[in-house]
């Protein structure tokens, strides 16, 4: 059920179509600028919302971004509706320590590598991912060290020989 | 002919072809530069390139076949030298070369392409193998139209002795072969085949830098690469000379015919370079289809016209 609706006066017509289908999963809708919609959902519903947006409404999954907030990892799914000139971002979170969230890879194949990258750099694990292996860090990089997480301390002011 | 004469002719021919080849390579780069609105390299630049390559170290990859890798450039260089020697001798003393030298020239001109193929496959690298396979497909395609074009000219001149000297004498008596319709068609076919043999765009498919790094030449460095560079420069000199000898009235080294010869040579070279600068590269299947479906029928038409006497 939608708890609070903070839309500007001219809300995008797309928002109503999304709310008609998955309104009960969405906790908050924000539209700060024209054509830029932010939907906040609970992590348990990410698969359903993604299926509706990608398969039913015909959006394009542009990318997935991850942010390390101190006590949770925020995952943003960016869906582009090219015909309506609108970008819809679905925000959800995964609690630390040991963040887990359901993977989108079974329904959207293009999400496979993006989720591997988020797993490498931030440390969020994606359940039911077909192959969650190392993607962009080197093979000799130590296991369990995630460079873009808050716990990682970058060695500063290295002196070269 | 005595052995010292033969050796003298061979070395003089090689030296002359090398000088002419390096000059032709400079003409190629200068015309390309002018077409692109810039100044080009200085006159001796190809010579500097060869000297620089001779001064670098030669690296042989670990899983390359040493013998094939190092001998391939020398074999190609030797073949082009022989062809150059035959053509220069025909120009100097028509009728002085042996019977059937046109066949020898055609056969020896396939050897540089074969040496590139052997060099590429013995490199031990996937780029070399891929470049060699493309060169093989290209060689299968362009050899037949080239031979048919030359045979069309021979049929028109009604010469069955395959002597280059007699062909030149016929042209000096009856006018250049390109003035007849069959000769003109054969010349056009031959220019395209020469473009492919030289490895110039639109047919430089084996050494496609954007796709294949260096193609068959990827693993070559130092002195073998210098020999390959010289071989390709000499091909750039020998093939227009062959075209002039067979189609355009023969190379005339006596004054005032030598001025005409120089004009013909430079015009032919500039035509080849301009084709190179104004066309994109073809894909290998496009090139094979072009040679088999378009040029071979045109050369067959030229052969039939020659039989009919046009």
């Amino acid at each position, binding site marked *: 059920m939608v708890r609070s609706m903070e839309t500007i006066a001219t809300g995008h017509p797309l928002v109503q179509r999304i709310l008609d289908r998955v309104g009960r999963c969405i906790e908050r809708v924000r539209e700060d600028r024209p054509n830029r919609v932010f939907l906040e959902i609970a992590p348990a519903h990410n698969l359903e919302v993604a299926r509706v947006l990608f398969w039913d409404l015909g959006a394009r999954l542009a990318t997935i971004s991850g942010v390390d907030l101190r006590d949770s990892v925020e995952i943003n799914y960016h869906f582009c509706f090219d015909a309506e000139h609108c970008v819809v971002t679905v925000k959800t979170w995964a609690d630390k320590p040991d963040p887990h969230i359901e993977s989108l890879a079974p329904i959207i194949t293009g999400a496979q590598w993006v989720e591997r990258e988020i797993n490498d750099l931030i440390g969020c694990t994606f359940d039911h991912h077909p192959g969650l292996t190392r993607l962009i860090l080197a093979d000799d990089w130590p296991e369990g060290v995630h460079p873009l997480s808050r716990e990682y301390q970058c060695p500063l002011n*290295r002196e070269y020989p | 002919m005595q052995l010292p004469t033969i050796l003298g002719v061979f070395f003089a021919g090689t030296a002359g072809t090398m000088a002419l080849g390096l000059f032709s390579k400079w003409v190629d780069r200068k015309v390309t530069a002018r077409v692109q609105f810039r100044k080009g390299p200085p006159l001796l630049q190809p010579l500097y390139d060869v000297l620089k390559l001779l001064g670098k170290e030669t*690296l042989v990859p670990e899983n390359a076949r040493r013998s094939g890798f190092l001998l391939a450039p020398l074999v190609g260089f030797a073949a082009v030298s022989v062809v150059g020697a035959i053509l220069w001798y025909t120009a100097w003393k028509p009728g002085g070369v042996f019977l059937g030298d046109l066949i020898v020239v055609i056969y020896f001109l396939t050897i540089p392409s074969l040496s590139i193929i052997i060099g590429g496959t013995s490199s031990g690298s996937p780029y070399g193998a891929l470049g060699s396979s493309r060169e093989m497909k290209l060689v299968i395609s362009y050899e037949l139209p080239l031979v048919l074009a030359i045979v069309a000219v021979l049929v028109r001149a009604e010469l069955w002795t395959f002597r280059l000297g007699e062909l030149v004498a016929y042209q000096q008596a009856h006018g250049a072969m390109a003035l007849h319709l069959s000769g003109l068609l054969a010349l056009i076919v031959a220019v395209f085949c020469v473009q492919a043999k030289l490895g110039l765009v639109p047919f430089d498919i084996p050494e496609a830098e954007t796709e294949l790094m260096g193609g068959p030449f990827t693993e070559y460095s130092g002195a073998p690469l210098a020999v390959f560079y010289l071989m390709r420069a000499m091909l750039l000199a020998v093939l227009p000379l062959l075209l002039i000898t067979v189609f355009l009235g023969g190379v005339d080294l006596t004054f005032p015919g030598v001025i005409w010869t120089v004009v013909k040579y430079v015009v032919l070279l500039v035509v080849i370079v301009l084709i190179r600068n104004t066309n994109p590269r073809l894909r290998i299947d496009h090139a094979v289809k072009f040679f088999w479906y378009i040029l071979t029928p045109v050369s067959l038409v030229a052969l039939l016209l020659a039989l009919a006497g046009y």
Partner: protein
Amino acid sequence: MSWKLWALKKSPWVYHVNTGACNNCDIEVLELLTPRFDVERFGVMLVGSPRHADALLVSGICTRQAAPRLQEVYRQTPKPCVVFCIGACACSRGIFHDAYHTSPVGPVDEVIKQVDPNAIIMYIPGCPPKPEAMILGVVKALNAL
């Protein structure tokens, strides 16, 4: 001066290596090779294989994965050769000085010196360096040889 070195100065063939750059320096190298700056007057030609090259134009901070590959490319370049570090990242890593995932050996010059302590390395700073700056760097390097 030996004839080998003289011929090398007259005809330097270049090969471009990117060891983890943002591609800005790569675009400037590409512009260097366009007809506007006409480096073919000096004999400079872009070649498709490091085995044909005399000068390596290296850009990028040299990441962990790129370091052994850059060393392999350097070994495949026949000596004598010059390494040009193009841009602030290749000279000293620039603003990515403390970044994660960079090679522990050091920036590009340290990685090359690990293979060959006597390597000839030329630094062309800038972010990205203008093609005129690159030409000046090449001229200075060739004069210093």
